[in-house]
């Protein structure tokens, strides 16, 4: 199969869906040149750096029968437009009694690990999970980003796609023929029997590397990539934890009130799963500090293979 980058796969998803549906508009502060060449400047619009205006405009477009992609570039810029996303996009389907649909795709990158310092290195998906009305996807491969974005562009709800910054140039197999990746279906990236590791975003790769190493020591990890956080594939996670009896959740977002806490609560509040637990579920998360700039400090602040291995060993040692 051919291999393309994560970012190319994302662009292909938009191209395919924009060809299918002419009532689609792309808004971004940076010129999406490839898209504009094909679809023209009316539909592929460059906006001023004024996030509230174009994030909100996507709501008005959606309420007027268009589908919109608003590319915010980085999650940190999303904060500028939180009122529009959280107070309006998320709520108005409900607040107006379901009389209108708001099909909007908000894209933004997340994650640390490239000396972007505190403002540009953040993974705020848990904040968005706390706002009902949004769907949240977390693609980690070129294959998934294409399939998930295509699904998002057929959704009738606002979707926020959090895409790991460091994976943008990553290459992977993507079929030529059309396919979709549904929301709410986790992918078991590696099957195993001793410990369930639910890994989010780029941490999927750290978890897979940890699994490789631990396999040599006779510890078998089952690595689950949820791919979407809202809806969350509870069943796949619960079945895995019921099988292994051990759960480690890895996320580079800060630990407090994070998605990892939600996954652990999910497992421990399920009676059947709770009784099968052989050790206390553990979190391997970003420290509760703003991400520092200098590499030694940054590396210290976020999870990696070694920290995952330590947490897994603690879980199996009991």
């Amino acid at each position: 199969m051919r291999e393309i980058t994560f970012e190319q796969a994302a662009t292909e998803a938009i191209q395919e869906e924009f060809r299918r549906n002419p009532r689609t508009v792309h808004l971004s502060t940076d010129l999406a040149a490839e898209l504009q060449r094909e679809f023209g400047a009316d539909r592929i619009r460059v906006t001023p750096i004024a996030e509230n205006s174009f994030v909100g405009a996507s709501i008005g477009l959606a309420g007027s029968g268009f589908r919109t992609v608003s590319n915010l570039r980085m999650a940190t810029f999303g904060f500028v437009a939180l009122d529009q996303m959280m107070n309006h996009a998320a709520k108005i389907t409900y607040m107006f009694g379901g009389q209108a649909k708001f099909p909007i795709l908000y894209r933004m990158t997340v994650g640390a690990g490239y000396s972007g310092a505190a403002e540009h290195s953040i993974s705020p998906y848990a904040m968005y999970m706390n706002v009902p009305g949004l769907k949240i996807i977390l693609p980690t491969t070129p294959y998934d980003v294409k399939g998930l974005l295509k699904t998002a562009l057929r959704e009738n709800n606002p979707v926020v796609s959090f895409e790991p910054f460091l994976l943008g140039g990553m290459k992977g197999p993507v079929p030529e023929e059309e396919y979709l990746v549904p929301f709410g279906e986790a992918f078991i990236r590696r099957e195993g029997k001793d410990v369930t590791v639910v890994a989010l975003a780029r941490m999927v790769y750290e978890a897979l590397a940890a699994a490789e190493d631990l396999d040599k020591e006779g510890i078998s990890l089952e690595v689950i990539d949820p791919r979407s956080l809202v809806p969350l594939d509870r069943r796949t996670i619960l079945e895995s934890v019921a099988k292994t009896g051990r759960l480690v959740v890895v996320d580079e977002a800060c630990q407090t009130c994070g998605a990892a806490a939600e996954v652990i609560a999910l497992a421990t509040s399920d009676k059947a799963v709770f009784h099968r637990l052989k050790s206390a579920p553990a979190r391997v998360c970003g420290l509760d500090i703003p991400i520092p700039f200098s590499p030694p400090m940054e590396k210290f602040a976020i999870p990696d293979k070694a920290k995952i291995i330590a947490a897994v060993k603690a879980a199996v040692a009991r």
Partner: protein
Amino acid sequence: MDLAKQTLIDLYTTMLTIRRFEERVVQEVYAGKVPGFVHSYIGEEAIATGVCAHLKREDRIVSHHRGHGHCIAKGADMKRMMAEIYGKKTGYCKGKGGSMHIADFSIGMLGADGIVGAGLPIATGAATAAQLEGKGNVAAVFFGDGACNEGEFHECLNLASIWKLPLLFVCENNGYGVNTPAEYAMGAKDITRMPEAYHIRNRSINGNDVELVYEAAGEAVSELRKGGGPYFLECRTYRWHKHFLSQTLEDLRPREEIESWKKQCPVAAFERRLLDRKVLTHSEAESINQRILAQVEEAHAFALESPNPQPQDALEDVYST
């Protein structure tokens, strides 16, 4: 200006309908019968009336927390409005929005948003949609003087200007954000200097004169339909009631100021003019009034007779299918 008799009567009827609807709502709120916050449009009726008279069903509007007048002027059903205000299942939003959030997408009323200034980006999107559709339709957004100090206001003036959007900005300058005077809060002092800075055509008018609003909005909308880019109307007006209807919220505006604006009542002034010009007779005016009172009564009865939502109805509509 020499408007057709029917146009004048229609303007009068719409204004009086808003007035009578709002009077009934005020009465019910102060009788403790309506849940939540209600922001009365009394005093500002000429603006929604004069602007919406030029809008077709396909033209879209975005409103704000003081939105009942915009709904009525755009053609919303008073029964479903009143039911929504009462939180009933038959309301426009099935009781999920209330007074502050009435919407009717089927008539191009894209909803009222309760965050000051937040409707502006949404309307900017609706105007972008109209531009893409290329059928000469327009969008109009209503907002107050308070919104003009929000960042979103400036972002949207800018975006509408550079994209030449068919967007009518309708600033209902009632002089206050809750109790804070615009005179204090607004560095620009003259609102139209702001659209002017973004090269947006603009006018400032007496928003209590419905003929003037009608004339100015007519010129603006016809410019928008020609594709000439956005237009900004500042309509100077005043709200008669407190920011929202409340027994406890203080009204810090000078008593004599409130009284002097009540003397400039947009509805009474227009009625006098129509009687003087013999467009209307006293008995015709009274028969219009009686018809409206009956419609308001019918809307109120509908709301009262309508069922409450079931508690578990709260679980529906979080997501569209």
